Structures are given as structure tokens and as C-alpha cells.
């Protein structure tokens, strides 16, 4: 039977603030899962700590709400134990690019076949609006006593350096664009990153709906706002690597686009390279039984519930004699 949006909903009370961009991300994710026709029993949603971290509670699928900054290591373990699962990780800009930045870089290198969605609202929403690592130098949001003294990190440039093989940006309330971007990320063979520009109407009064729509910049000719966001694919940009020689020029092109901000903010796929081997493929070369019997499918106990693995031989070797 065809899946419906309601198949991915739960009855858990949602306490995100009214108008929070997380609602757009949640709905886009659920719509993407419906379109991809993956059954809830095949999906795992993993999150770190922050407002974004509540996502698994609202999606009817397997889920783990993990530790601050540590969603990726949990996800890597789950994916390696059971590669048949569709693993989707939700992180915050603080969670994933502050405390979790080391995991971010090392997840890029591994190239597991998973999806990582970062809810980028420029603040630590859950802890009342401190500057997050993506907030730009000199910007002051309402909970900060003074403008930001640090420069903001560029997550797309960092992802390119780390080796993510699918790198895209989307927008929380362009639900159609975000849904399609999540679908591409899930279908991508390798580690996919989707940065979602997210409003936090409660603490970020700078990067608002009006700011993204360019309501402060009225075109003198048309009298209409000039939107800040524009779609890469509608501007003839193509970030897909099709042959090894494409890697360097496409990386440079993506990096150049990654530094556009303020007046013009690109959304869409910056870079995609499916020529890189996945971590699962690399493991399968070393452990030939891995694809057929990953850890989740291994028999670990006999019908009496006793472990089938015995470490007696190892212990015997360590026995102190004489």
C-alpha cells in the first residue's frame, strides 16, 4: 500500500516555537520519505542535542536522540551494524559544527552511505540564543550583549575539505526544494550533507523570513524585494563529478560558490562525486563476509540464550601458571 505523510507522524507533543523553521525541515523530511517509499521500519533518524534534536520524536521510524555533538558516531555504528537501514542524521549548527566538528570532519573522510542534515539557525536555540559557529563576525542577535567576536565557519567549504561526496544547501521554508534535496541526498551513494538555512523566530531576528526574502532591498524598477536565495541549478551550475579529471575544477567551483553570502546565497547541490568508494565497500574488501552477514545479522546466542562466542581459548592463553 502506498505510504502517506501520516505514516511518518507521531503523536508526540511538539514544543518547537510557533513559526520555527524546524517545522519546514520536519515536513520536508516526511514528504521525502513518502516519495522515496521507504517503509518506517527501514528508517533510522538520529540527532544530537538542541531544538533540532527533537526531530526523531516526531518521525514515526526508528530513532535515537543521542549526546551533544555525537550524533554521527552513533549513526556510523548503526549503519555499519545494519547497512540495510536508511540512516538520516539531524544535527544543529552548534551541535554539528561546534562540539561535534571533529566528528563532522572524520565522517567526511569515511564516506559511509548516509545523510546528514544540519539545521543552521545561527544560534544555540535550545540554550537561549547564544551565537553558534555559523554566525558571522560582527552580527548581533537578540540574546547577545555585543556583536559576535568570532568569524562564522563555512560549513560547505569545510565539508569539501573533509571529503563529503554530496554537499547541498536548502531552505527550511522552500519545502519543495528541501524535499527534493533530501531525496537526492538519501539516494546519493556515499556521505551526503544538506545544510538547511533555518529561521529561529525566537532568537535570531537577523536571518528572518524578511531577510531571506530580501524585504530590506527593494528593486527600484519593479518595486519588489530582491530575494537573497537563488537556485544553483537554475543558473547553469552543475557540481556533479562524472570523471576523475572533474574533481579539481568542480571542487574549486563549489568552493567559490560556498563563499557567496549576504547579497546572494546559493541553494542546491554544490558538489557530488559518486566515484569515491564508500566505507562499506572498503570494509567488504577486507572482510568478505560483511555484506551478507553484517553484525546485525550475525547469530550471537544459541536457542538457550547462551552466547555462541567463547573467549575461553583467549582466557586460557592468559592463564598465569607456575
Amino acid at each position: 500500500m502506498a505510504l502517506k505523510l501520516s505514516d511518518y507522524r507521531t503523536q508526540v507533543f511538539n514544543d518547537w516555537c510557533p513559526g520555527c523553521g524546524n517545522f519546514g525541515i520536519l515536513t520536508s523530511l516526511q514528504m521525502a520519505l513518502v516519495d522515496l517509499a521507504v517503509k518506517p521500519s527501514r528508517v533510522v533518524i538520529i540527532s544530537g542535542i538542541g531544538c533540532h534534536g527533537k526531530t526523531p520524536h516526531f518521525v514515526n521510524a526508528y530513532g535515537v536522540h543521542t549526546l551533544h555533538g555525537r550524533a554521527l558516531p552513533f549513526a556510523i555504528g548503526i549503519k555499519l551494524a545494519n547497512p540495510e537501514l536508511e540512516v538520516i542524521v539531524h544535527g544543529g549548527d552548534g551541535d554539528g559544527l561546534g562540539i561535534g566538528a571533529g566528528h563532522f570532519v572524520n565522517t567526511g573522510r569515511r564516506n559511509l552511505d548516509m545523510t546528514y542534515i544540519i539545521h543552521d539557525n545561527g544560534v544555540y536555540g535550545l540554550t537561549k540564543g547564544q551565537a553558534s559557529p555559523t554566525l558571522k563576525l560582527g552580527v548581533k542577535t537578540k540574546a547577545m550583549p555585543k556583536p559576535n567576536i568570532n568569524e562564522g565557519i563555512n560549513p560547505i567549504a569545510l565539508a569539501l575539505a573533509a571529503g563529503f561526496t554530496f554537499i547541498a544547501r536548502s531552505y527550511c521554508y522552500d519545502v519543495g526544494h528541501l524535499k527534493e534535496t533530501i531525496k537526492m541526498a538519501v539516494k546519493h551513494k556515499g556521505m551526503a550533507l544538506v545544510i538547511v538555512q533555518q529561521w529561529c523566530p525566537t532568537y535570531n531576528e537577523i536571518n528572518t523570513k524578511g531577510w531571506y526574502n530580501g524585504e530590506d532591498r527593494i528593486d527600484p524598477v519593479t518595486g519588489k524585494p530582491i530575494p537573497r536565495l537563488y537556485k544553483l541549478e537554475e543558473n547553469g551550475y552543475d557540481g556533479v563529478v562524472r570523471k576523475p579529471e572533474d574533481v579539481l575544477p568542480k571542487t574549486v567551483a563549489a568552493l567559490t560558490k560556498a563563499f557567496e553570502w549576504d547579497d546572494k546565497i546559493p541553494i542546491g547541490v554544490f558538489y557530488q562525486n559518486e566515484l569515491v568508494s564508500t566505507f562499506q565497500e572498503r570494509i567488504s574488501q577486507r572482510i568478505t563476509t560483511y555484506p551478507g552477514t553484517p553484525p546485525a545479522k550475525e547469530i550471537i546466542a544459541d536457542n538457550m540464550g547462551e552466547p555462541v562466542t567463547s573467549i575461553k581459548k583467549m582466557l586460557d592463553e592468559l592463564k598465569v601458571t607456575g
Partner: protein
Amino acid sequence: MKKPVVGEHNAHKIRGDVKPPEKLGIHGTSVAVDQDSCEGDGICISVCPVNVFNWISSPGHATSSKKSDPVNEIDCIFCRACESQCPVRAIKITEL
């Protein structure tokens, strides 16, 4: 939503007591706007991230001469911004 459906326009259902121009009823199902309470403030139109509402004129109605109408109800993503900001609490959001 318990009230019977009495009509349909702009791709949503209308419920309740409807005797235009004095009584306009409740417009929409998942985004239900009580157009008899609506005072035409318009905050829902400005806060809705996915443009669910549009103005509809209501000459001869006691509370206001224009009303918010959930013309793109199908696009609602249930963020509840409209429900929480409406000064007269005329909107009720229900995830269907």
C-alpha cells in the same frame, strides 16, 4: 471540525452557520479560520511561511470588511505561527 460541511470554495470546506454577508462560518479543515471572529488583522498572512492565506473581501460583515481565507490549505506545514499570533484566536490548526 464536528460541524457539518455546508459548502466549499477556494479548495477548502466551509462549516457552521453560513448566511452571508452576516455569517461566514469556519473556512478550512486542517487550517480552520473562524471568519466570524476574524477582525482582518492579517498577521497570519505575514507570518505564514508557505503562503496559506489570502485576503477575501467581506462587505457587510460586523467584525471586518476583509477576512483571511486559507486558500492554500494543502500547503500548511503545521508550524502554528498563525494560530499563536492571531489576536482574536480565530485560527485552529489540526494535523490531519
